[in-house]
């Protein structure tokens, strides 16, 4: 008979696993809600993230990885500065890619991202170590201040540059404190996932949208894309499980439960990512436009929003989160193979449907619930049924409340 301590432990494990699922599910639910696409290739974006991170952490020596990151930071900064300096133009043609035509908020985001990456690289050569905790605390404080300032200034109808500066500073501090080859690799893995997603958007999804493809077409094509991505990974990296060398660190004891450093890292990264998503959706112009698009696609199109650009932003968001989740998988005792994406896909769908299609917050909640359920079933019943448990939840939700917890569409 399992003890209370065991149950709590399963719960703790479940929350860690659940936060990874939640991260990946956010992108899936947004794509589903906005593009009406049940993306069967979403799980494979996680695989790209995992393998990308692996590639950068193992195959690429830290110096070279730092170079990559620095290069990426420079590019981002250039894009951002150009976006800030370029004169605002009205009536851009749809789908234009040129850097000088970024929205000011996007430009600021690019600069902040660049600063964070640069700080991370700095952190590799000048690690925070003893100062890590104070630096993180400082980062949190700056971030909170940024949110408060942004709120107040938006309410007064003023720009939020101060908020951006504060937020940027906080992000850079956090990046410096957390800088480690792992985080760098995770960021680059997420970037790889974004590249793959944008590629397929240009080559496959946009043409299909223009042709008003039927649901079946979209489903079948997403299966095809899934096969392509998964097997491209298998061809490049082999079909066996990845071998990770995880540093051995002492876990913490919190009451009756054991918390590994890996789980703590997972929770921190997931929480930061989710906070970032929330800030993005709530405060940036692109984020608000995405929400409008999700609520009422026809109205959004009629009001002159550049839908194709928004969709690219959507893919960047979704794939970035999925790639990040993939990079976190090895921290949660997940054996990573090229097929890991499909293994997780149904679980992700379960989280999405549980939370309600189209609701990012629903996906977060759904992911956490499913993670806990999976760990409880694995611990109390049998580890073989871990995934089957999530499928069972999926079917149960479809039976009882197809629109999910936070609403969506049922029929």
């Amino acid at each position: 008979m399992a003890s209370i301590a065991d149950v709590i432990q399963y719960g703790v494990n479940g929350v860690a696993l659940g936060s990874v699922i939640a991260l990946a599910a956010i992108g899936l639910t947004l794509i589903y809600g906005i593009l009406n696409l049940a993306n069967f290739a979403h799980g494979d974006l996680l695989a790209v993230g995992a393998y990308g991170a692996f590639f950068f952490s193992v195959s690429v020596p830290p110096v070279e990885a730092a170079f990559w990151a620095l290069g990426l930071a420079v590019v981002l900064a250039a894009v951002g500065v150009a976006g800030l300096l370029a004169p605002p133009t009205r009536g851009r043609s749809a789908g234009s890619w040129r850097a000088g035509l970024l929205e000011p908020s996007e430009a600021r985001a690019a600069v902040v991202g660049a600063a964070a990456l640069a700080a991370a690289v700095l952190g590799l050569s000048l690690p925070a170590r003893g100062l890590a905790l104070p630096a993180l605390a400082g980062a949190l404080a700056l971030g909170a201040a940024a949110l408060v300032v942004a709120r107040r200034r938006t309410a007064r109808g003023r720009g939020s540059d101060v908020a951006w500066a504060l937020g940027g500073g906080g992000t850079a501090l956090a990046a410096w404190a957390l800088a480690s080859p792992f985080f760098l690799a995770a960021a680059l893995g997420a970037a790889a996932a974004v590249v793959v997603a944008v590629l397929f958007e240009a080559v496959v999804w946009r043409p299909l949208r223009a042709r008003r493809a039927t649901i079946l077409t979209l489903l079948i094509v997403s299966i095809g894309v899934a096969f392509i991505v998964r097997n491209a990974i298998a061809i490049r990296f082999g079909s066996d499980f990845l071998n990770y060398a995880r540093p051995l660190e002492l876990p913490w004891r919190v009451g009756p439960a054991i918390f590994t450093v890996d789980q703590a890292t997972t929770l921190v990264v997931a929480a930061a990512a989710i906070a970032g998503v929330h800030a993005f959706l709530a405060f940036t112009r692109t984020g608000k436009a995405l929400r409008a698009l999700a609520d009422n696609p026809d109205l959004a199109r009629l009001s002159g929003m550049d839908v194709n650009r928004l969709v690219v932003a959507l893919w960047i968001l979704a794939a970035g989160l999925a790639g990040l989740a993939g990079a976190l998988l090895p921290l949660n005792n997940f054996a990573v193979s090229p097929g890991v994406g499909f293994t997780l896909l149904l679980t992700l769908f379960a989280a999405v449907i549980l939370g309600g299609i189209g609701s990012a917050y629903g996906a977060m909640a759904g992911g956490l619930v499913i993670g806990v359920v999976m760990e409880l079933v694995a611990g109390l019943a049998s580890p073989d049924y871990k995934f089957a448990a999530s499928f069972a939840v999926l079917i149960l939700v479809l039976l009882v409340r197809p629109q999910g917890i936070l609403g969506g569409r049922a029929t």
Partner: protein
Amino acid sequence: MKLPALSRDGREWAVVAALASGVFLLLTLISARNGSVSGEFLVGVALTMALFALLALGLSLQFGLAGLINFGHIGFAAIGAYGVGLAHLNGWPWFAGVALGLLGAVALAIVVGIPTLRLREDYLAIATIGVAEIVRTIALSEVWLTRGPFGIYSFPLPGRDFATSGPWAALAASLGVVPYSPFFVAVLALVLFGVLYWTFSRLARSPWGRVLRAIREDEDVAGAVGKNPFRFKLQALALGAVPAALYGMLYAWAFAQIIPALFVPLVTFYAWTIVVVGGVTTLRGALAGSIAFWGLTAFARVLRLETIPVVGGPLESVVGFLTRPGPGQELLIGVLLVLVMLHRPQGIVGRREELRFGR
């Protein structure tokens, strides 16, 4: 040479027949040239074609006639196979196993259909994979019931006595093949495909089929004229499960093994590729697609591309990689699916105007 004006149906059959004879003719010709094709090889190709034609036939009925998107098709095959396997493990006669497999598959279809058929099509797709995976997980974990990952082997296959003596054996000998499975199973599969295809075609042309086509077109209109869409869709789902169960059983008999790894979602998507490539708008698509796909694979084995000067070696490795089981073949599946849906969604024998009309 001018062909006589055939009806549409006739033309599609001509295509299928041409495809089939083309494949086998070419294979035998190549065999004559470089001796790479044996009778056994041909039987193997025919067996795979027939088995997958059966599997795809179920999908074609469910989607082509009723508009149902079933991504968990292999689950029905698993039930069919394990029905036979369970009968062996428990010492029941083989026809009890067949009955168990068929009835079990139909029962699963009904159980899956009841909650999900009222929902939208993509929910059905997701739910059906979920169910199929649950079935596979149970098969994998409940070792006491199914021998789990170890599998069920060496069960006595029906028809052995008949097949290893008398006229059948003589026939096999004259063709230069082993009389028993796989030759026996290949012929059996083809016969069963023919029977089911004929039955399904009749049903499609009956008033029952008309109601289903109406439901696929516009469920509300079908309801407004007194037809209960749910009931008909459930029947289509259950009916489509039958050839899938047969696939499972025949596969088990042909290769004398039943393991959970045979029933992974990958196989469902092989079947979908075959349906899509062959043509979703007609039941014939299942046959055309299976012949085309496995014919292509067979060619690659048989062409001895490496004998071509200069490019032969690398060409052989690439083609071989793409057509042998493994990441290469799966990559090919993915590319096929995307390309066909983008550029020729009606497949080989499908009709473009039946894909979408004014929608």
